[in-house]
């Protein structure tokens, strides 16, 4: 099974790469996983493609250790979450939140959605809003 994920973001590869490294934008999970990340210009006016390959490591990454930690399907879902959140931050300035998924895109939330109705105060604190 492929352990790759990709997303396309509006903006030049230079801009997108710069954002990738900035605090407040840098995707935590992909960062901690030392995954191989490449940036390519997309055709036409489509922006920049980001490709993440979990079977490659970033320069200087600890391959053996990470390969153990990253076995199974879960890591890919988390990588995809990271990519979508990064895209939303870059393009819209924040992470879209719904009442059912108040944390924004989150793999763990997929199976236990809360009802699509406003949150109580205590819940708001829990999800960090």
């Amino acid at each position, binding site marked *: 099974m492929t352990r790759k994920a990709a997303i*396309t973001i*509006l903006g030049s590869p230079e801009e997108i790469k710069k954002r990738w490294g900035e605090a407040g934008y840098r995707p935590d999970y992909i960062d901690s996983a030392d995954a191989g990340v490449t940036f390519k210009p997309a055709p036409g*006016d*489509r*922006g920049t493609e980001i490709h993440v390959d979990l079977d490659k490591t970033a320069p200087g990454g600890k391959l053996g250790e990470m390969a153990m930690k990253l076995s199974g399907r879960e890591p890919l*879902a988390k990588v*995809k*979450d990271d990519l*979508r959140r990064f*895209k*939303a931050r870059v*393009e*819209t*300035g*924040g*992470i*879209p*939140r*719904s*009442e*059912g*998924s*108040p944390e*924004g*895109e*989150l*793999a763990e*939330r*997929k199976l236990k*959605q*809360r*009802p*699509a*109705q*406003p*949150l*109580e105060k205590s819940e*708001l604190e829990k999800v960090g*809003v």
Partner: protein
Amino acid sequence: MRANVWNGRNSVEVENVPDPTILNDRDAIVKISSTAICGSDLHLYDGYIPTMKKGDILGHEFMGEVVEKGKGVANLDIGDRVVVPFPIACGDCWACKHELYSVCENTNPNAGMAEKVFGHSSAGIFGYSHLTGGYAGGQAEYARVPFADVGPIKIEEDFSDEQVLFLSDIFPTGYFGADLCDIQGGETIAVFGAGPVGQFAIASAVLMGAERVIAIDQYDYRLQMALNKAGATDIVDFSKDPDIVEQLKELTGGRGPDAVIDAVGMEAAHGHGALHAAERVKQATRSESDRGHALRDAILACRPGGIVSVIGVYGGLLDKFPSGAFMNKGLQLRAGQCHVQKYLKPLYDHIRNGDIDPSFVVTHRMELGRAPDGFETFKHKQDECVKVVLKP
């Protein structure tokens, strides 16, 4: 606040829920003055759209007054009267920049879920299952409106709620269906379904210069509205004769309509007893999610080289797609949830110019608390129901 929530198949209930709060800088809170039940809400009510959860607030057609806004919303002021489009769009992604708002790339926080079902995610939609984001809907006293700097249109003239409310969905959706037909003037357009969206598809085809517009339905009172209010020139009542394709050919000198709009979707009814019964069973046992009589007949009836425009909602998979007719007749199949944000201003201008008064579809007005009655009346077409407006 009070809100109409989904309670399981064929059950909605008006409950007390927490008031909405701002979750993002680009959110606004709207105090709702009018909200409507959409035909597509019936697909949720009937249990055919997956990923509904008990307690979900329904409703994606609403308007009201801005009572609170995040610091990213510069275009609206507290007190503004606004109509809110049903798709939630960021305005920043490639799709939004190309006016493809209903396939916004950022507004569905359950994009991963949608990708599993549809291959890709589409935009978030208010009150329309968790597959389209899990956003609380507008059949309530208040709603949080994300990306309020992109979606809502300000209503500054003195129109009644009912004259502008349908800018939220069904007027643009009907118009979009007609727009997909590339009407240049002089065409014959057939519209499957004379429900609220079908009525606006008919009226829009007339506005665009179609010469003949044929309404197809099984309820005479809806066909009469199509003739007398929306501007249809001909009707086909398939409760009297189930062979829609032959009747359309007969009405068009054998050619078939230049374009056909499917304003029915996944719960099509049909006069062909045996096929309908078989599909009904498959859908009930969940071995087929979409009943497709309208789409099949649209493809069979459309003239060679014509366009089939699909604005009725489908949710999954369909059997017996007439691929032979589709391919050999050289048809174009076009579809989508309406890119409402693209049409808001031009359609508001049509209302201001007096070209159309969208309130003609309203047949029932109820207090929000009677939403459960509204759903039953609308679903079973009781009391000649076409459109229900709820007042919180």
